[in-house]
Structure formats: structure tokens, C-alpha cells
């Protein structure tokens, strides 16, 4: 087999390094890029460079931002006495999309996982404690994922926060809104039954 264009192969190679992109998809993307007008390709390329050059971590909550502190931390409209602790910057976006939360965030950068060599010292837990210590925080919401690593990280943090006189809560787990009981898997349904609420 002979390649007719080394540049095409290089780009295929680069695309297929991205998550969820296989070689087939990479080829389709390259074929599409070849047909795109040059100015659009330039926009794409400069957007890629810009996220690397301009995006930084907020020094307060550690989410990704172009300005430090981030727009959420610097907004006067947000309730800075409530912190929602999440694993990754993507989780901030997810909660923001609900338009139902008016507090601020704290991004841990992962969860405790000895199998991946991640201990509490690799996460931004010390920084969270400093925030609770130095500003008037009244509630911490632990918005970690409901798996064993998330559970353990939540326990670990809640133990460290215990000495402070603040409210600590965890996101409820259960049936998705708009979901159908019939089509909810038994494990989720079972847990939802366990943590049922009075009406």
C-alpha cells in the first residue's frame, strides 16, 4: 500500500488520538476538512490553539476559565456561602445548565482512587478546606459521581469538614426526571426506594 498524501495521513493520525475517534471516523473528518473553505479551517485551528493558550484554572474554584477569577466566582449575584464540590470542570457546566443553582463551585480535579495512584493530596482538597476556613461558608454540597470512588471521596471530605459548623449534603440519587419506572433498571429503582422521601 502506498499513501498519496503524507499530510492526510498525519491528520488522520492526529484525529484518531482523540477519545471516541477511531481511524474510520478520523478519515471522515479529514475528508470533511479537505472540503472546508480555508477561513473555516483557520477558525478551527486557532480555536484549538486558543484553548491551550488562553484557558487557565480559576485560582479560587479551579474550573476552566479565560479570566481569573472565573465569571462565577467574580459574580456579585452568586451566593458565595454555598459551595458545590464537583470532580471535573465539565460537571460545573452540567449543573449550570440546570439554572437551578446559585452558589459557587469547587473543582477537585478527580476522585480518590488508589488503583489509579490518586490520593487526596493529588486533589484540590486542601484548597477546599482553606476556602471553608477563610470565608463565611454555610453549606457544602458534594456533587461527586455515585460510584464507589465518588462515595469514598465524599466520606473523606465530609470527615474533614465535620469540625466546621456548616451544613454538608450530597446529591440525591434515584429515578431520572421524565424517566419511566417501568424502564428504570432495578438497581437504580431499588436505591430510589431506599432513599424515598416523605410527602
Amino acid at each position, binding site marked *: 500500500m502506498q499513501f498519496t498524501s503524507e499530510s492526510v495521513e498525519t491528520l488522520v493520525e492526529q484525529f484518531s488520538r482523540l477519545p471516541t475517534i477511531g481511524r474510520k471516523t478520523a478519515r471522515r473528518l479529514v475528508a470533511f476538512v479537505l472540503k472546508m473553505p480555508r477561513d473555516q479551517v483557520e477558525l478551527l485551528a486557532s480555536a484549538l490553539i486558543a484553548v491551550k493558550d488562553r484557558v487557565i484554572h480559576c485560582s479560587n474554584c479551579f474550573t476552566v476559565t479565560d479570566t481569573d477569577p472565573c465569571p462565577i466566582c467574580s459574580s456579585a449575584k452568586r451566593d458565595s456561602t454555598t459551595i458545590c464540590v464537583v470532580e471535573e470542570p465539565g460537571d460545573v457546566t452540567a449543573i449550570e445548565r440546570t439554572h437551578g443553582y446559585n452558589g459557587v463551585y469547587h473543582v477537585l480535579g478527580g476522585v480518590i482512587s*488508589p488503583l489509579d495512584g490518586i490520593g*487526596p493530596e493529588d486533589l484540590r482538597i486542601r484548597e477546599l478546606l482553606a476556602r471553608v476556613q477563610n470565608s463565611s461558608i454555610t453549606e457544602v454540597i458534594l456533587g461527586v459521581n455515585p*460510584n464507589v470512588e465518588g462515595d*469514598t471521596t465524599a466520606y473523606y471530605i465530609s470527615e474533614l469538614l465535620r469540625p466546621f459548623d456548616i451544613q454538608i449534603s450530597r446529591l440525591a440519587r434515584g429515578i431520572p426526571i421524565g424517566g419511566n419506572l417501568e424502564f428504570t433498571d432495578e438497581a437504580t429503582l431499588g436505591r430510589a426506594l431506599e432513599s424515598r422521601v416523605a410527602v
Partner: protein
Amino acid sequence: MVIKRISLKQFRAHEESVLAFHPGLNIISGPNGTGKTNILEAVHYLCLTKSFLTSNDRYVLRHGAPFFEIIGDFESSTGQSLVVRIAFLPGEGKKIFVNGVHVPRASDFVGRIPVVVFSPDDYVITAGGPEERRRFIDTIISQSSRIYLDDLIRYRRTLKQRNELLQSIKRRRGPMHSEQISSWSRELVDIGSRIIHSRLLFIERFSRLLDEACRRIGSEIEEPRIFYRPLSGDAKLGDVEEIKEVFSNVLQKCAHREWERGLTLAGPHRDDLHFELDGMPVRRFASQGQHRTFGLALKLAQYSFLLETVEEPPLLLLDDVFDNLDHTRIGLFFSILHESEMGQSLITAARKDIFGELLGENSDHHLDIRETIASEV
């Protein structure tokens, strides 16, 4: 549940085979090495997404083949049809399709088609190590409770994480990280206590069924008893909260040894079941024959338990179990399989003549594996 038809591609000895089954008794006979057991193994795959002989999907792939595929047509007792397809590609893993729809997690499917396997190895349940007994009850409870299966998966993950942490402390001879360990302990205790609680409830129901099963096979076994003493204690444990308290205390007591050995030393993963026969522990005092009879009784009790819980007659897979039984036992066992509450059974045997006149002219279905495969493909 009844399997009406199965098709195998590149599965073990089968390059391409299609077989149709009778809703009652099916005898699959043929010389050794023609793939009789493989058919039961394939049916087991369709029920529980794995083999009962190996835990590695690669081993069941026909030598040199790029993939294997099994398709089964099932029908429930209410007449609903269920087409299950499992395809395996090395590197890409196993994919499960139910009525044409991809099921991403095996745990979402397990339990829909209850199954019980009788095999010559069943004596290890009473004669082998504690892990055999744990596997035996875990398989039954998982088939009847999705929450239990979910808890088991989460427990294994927590255990792995906690052991890794203990190991890394040991390796580096570093600080004890006691806050982190106690966070993992709490998760371990939360999930583990639910598992112990489910097992205790299960044993309560299962002992009655075991008693019944022993009587049905007319065995010499008198008063079989089964005990589960979790957390190696004698304490009578009640609800989950009580178990949690005991579990945490036990963990605290062995904390020092855990640090030394870098291993989680207490929990449902180390518990054992105890079988007794007329007051004597089966594991040490039973004869080989008694172990076999006990194994048979345990499987029959498993059948009754699943029938009661899932409310769908489980499939019975009997792999070469008749070779080691005398003629009276074979007759007795056959009459049990013919009882109305028993569902479909697939039986392998090297020679069908061991069944003698037990095989009726019309009621039973006999598949000679060489003829079947030759004629139906």
C-alpha cells in the same frame, strides 16, 4: 423459560451449528469431543453472558476464528419470545443484543433467563474451598436480585481499591493514611453489610428448600443443615445497621494486621458457609458419594429457589451428571425432571443407552449431535 433454537458460529468445536430443542427433556448424545458440553456452555452464555467452565471469553473462540456468535430463541412461560444474540470479537469484547437491541451492561440482562447447571464438579461446593460456596450462593442471589448483583460489583471494586491502598502503604512504608483507609472502610462496610444481610435472608429460605430437595432425591442424607456465620463471629446478626456496627468493629480490630499484610482481612469476601449432616461438618466427614448427593440436592434447591423468586421456570443444564450415578438414582432423577413444575432440561451423555427404557417413545427428544449438526446446517 424455554429455548427453542440455538445457532452457534465459531464457538468451541462448532464452526457453524443450528439445533432445535424440545420444550421438555432433551438428551444430547454423541462421542467425546463432538461438542456436547459446548452446547450447554453456549446456552449458559445466552442466560448469564458467560461460560460455566471458564472466565475467559477467548478460550471459547474456535481456534483461529476471528469472532464467535451465539443466537438463541427463547420463549417465556407467558408466551413472550426473546431473541438473545451474543457476539465476541477479541479486542472489542462481548456485545449482547436482546430482541435486536444492544444491551450495554451485562448486569442489565442477567436474571431474565434463570438457569441452573448440574455438573460432575458440583461436589466441590461442599468439598472445595470457601470461594466455591461463596460463588454458589452469589450466583443464585444475583440471578434473583439485581440490587445484590450491583452490590457485589461495587463491593469488588471497593475491595480492590482498599487493598491497593493498603499495599501502597506497605510498599512505601509510608504514613498510615488512616483517614483515607477509614473512608474506604466505610464504603466497604456500607455495601458489605447489605451483602451479608441478603445472604442471611437467602440462607433462611434456602435451608427449607434444601431439606425438601434431599427428601425428593430419596437420599440417605438426614437433616442437612446450612449455616452462614458472617464476619467469623458467633453473634446473631439482625438488620443491616447491626451488621454495619459489627463489621466496623471487626475491621478496627484487625487494622494492624491489615497494614502488615496489605490486605483487607474481614468482610463477605472472606466468609464461609457451613454444611452439616446429622450434626457433622460435611466438608471433613462426608464420603465422596455423600458430597455428590449433597451437590445434587443443592442444585435442586437452587432450582426451587429461582422458580419461587423469578416466577419463571429456570432452564436446566445437566452436563454428564448421569455417568456417575447408579441405575436407581438415574431413574429417580429422571422422574423428578418429568415433574410438571420442572421446566426444560438439556442433558449431555456420551451414550444414550445408560437411560435404557427411561426414554419414552414420544415424550422425550433425543439429539444425536453428529446427525443433528449434519442434517440441520
